């Protein structure tokens, strides 16, 4: 494992987005992972439609909540093509699902994997290197007040309640940490990112980890 790695350095991660007052973190994390998975394969780094996942993923609850795993299952089973965000823009509220003709261009996923990596965060780092950013769910109650630095206290691996994307890790300092991309805009945390201590399953970050294949 390198001491430091970040998919942002490969220019395959889009800017941080803002879910506003819509509980759609589960959709933002999955769509961001798909955007980066495409870019890693050399395809354009486009913004894909989060609103399409919010409106159409029938096994979730739109802006009232959902799970990345359910969204990935829905995408995998239906082979729905995600259209570009400009085609189906985010409006921070639930809407009626819009359907597109088969000829519509878009991105569908090939498969996904999800594992519990608790106690195996080095294996998790290898998965990040091998497959791309990791969709994770964390207990983010204490993130309400987060300003910066490495989260290592007051973040129990209690009930997971927020979905985010791990884009890298940094083990060069005294406290190794995951680099975590949030969806609360760039004014939150470290330009929209948080640093979470690696090891010890802080915030429950290793409990449910998904990767997507396109």
């Amino acid at each position, binding site marked *: 494992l390198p001491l430091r790695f970040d998919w942002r350095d490969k220019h395959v991660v889009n800017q941080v987005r803002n*879910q506003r*007052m*819509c*509980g759609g*973190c*589960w959709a933002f*994390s999955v769509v961001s992972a798909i955007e980066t998975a495409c870019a890693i394969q050399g395809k354009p780094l486009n913004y894909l439609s989060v609103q399409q996942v919010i409106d159409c993923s029938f096994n979730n609850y739109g*802006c*009232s*909540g*959902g*799970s*990345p*795993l*359910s969204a990935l*299952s829905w995408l*995998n*089973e239906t082979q729905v093509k995600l259209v570009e965000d400009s085609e189906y823009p985010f409006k921070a509220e639930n809407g009626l699902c819009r359907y597109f003709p088969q000829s519509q261009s878009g991105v569908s996923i090939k*498969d*996904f*994997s*999800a*594992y*519990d*990596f608790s106690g*195996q965060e080095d*294996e*998790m780092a290898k998965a990040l290197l091998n497959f791309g950013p990791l969709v994770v*769910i964390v207990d*983010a*109650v*204490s993130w*309400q*007040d*987060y*300003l*910066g*630095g*490495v*989260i*290592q*206290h*007051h973040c129990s691996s209690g*009930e*997971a*309640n*927020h*979905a985010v994307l791990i884009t890298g890790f940094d083990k060069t*300092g*005294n*406290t190794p940490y995951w680099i975590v991309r949030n969806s*609360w*805009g760039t*004014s*939150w945390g470290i330009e929209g990112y948080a*640093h979470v201590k690696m090891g010890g399953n802080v915030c429950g970050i290793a*409990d*449910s*980890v*998904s990767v997507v294949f396109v």
Partner: protein
Amino acid sequence: TWPRSHQREAAALRESLNRHRYLNSFSHENSTACYGLNQFSYLSPEEFKAMYLGSKPTWSPRYPAAGQTPIPNVS
């Protein structure tokens, strides 16, 4: 008297300031996180959770330790 929403926000802000003092009381390591006023400070924890923490916990199979054959993908 202030409109109720201002009262509520003022109460939430006071609660946030108290919480920051507690959360920062552990910051003896220089790299550890720091907590303070931001765009969510006027929300109570309950309001913040209801609006911004919309993910449901999901079970995932344990990643097979090195050397074991991975179990088939969840999907």
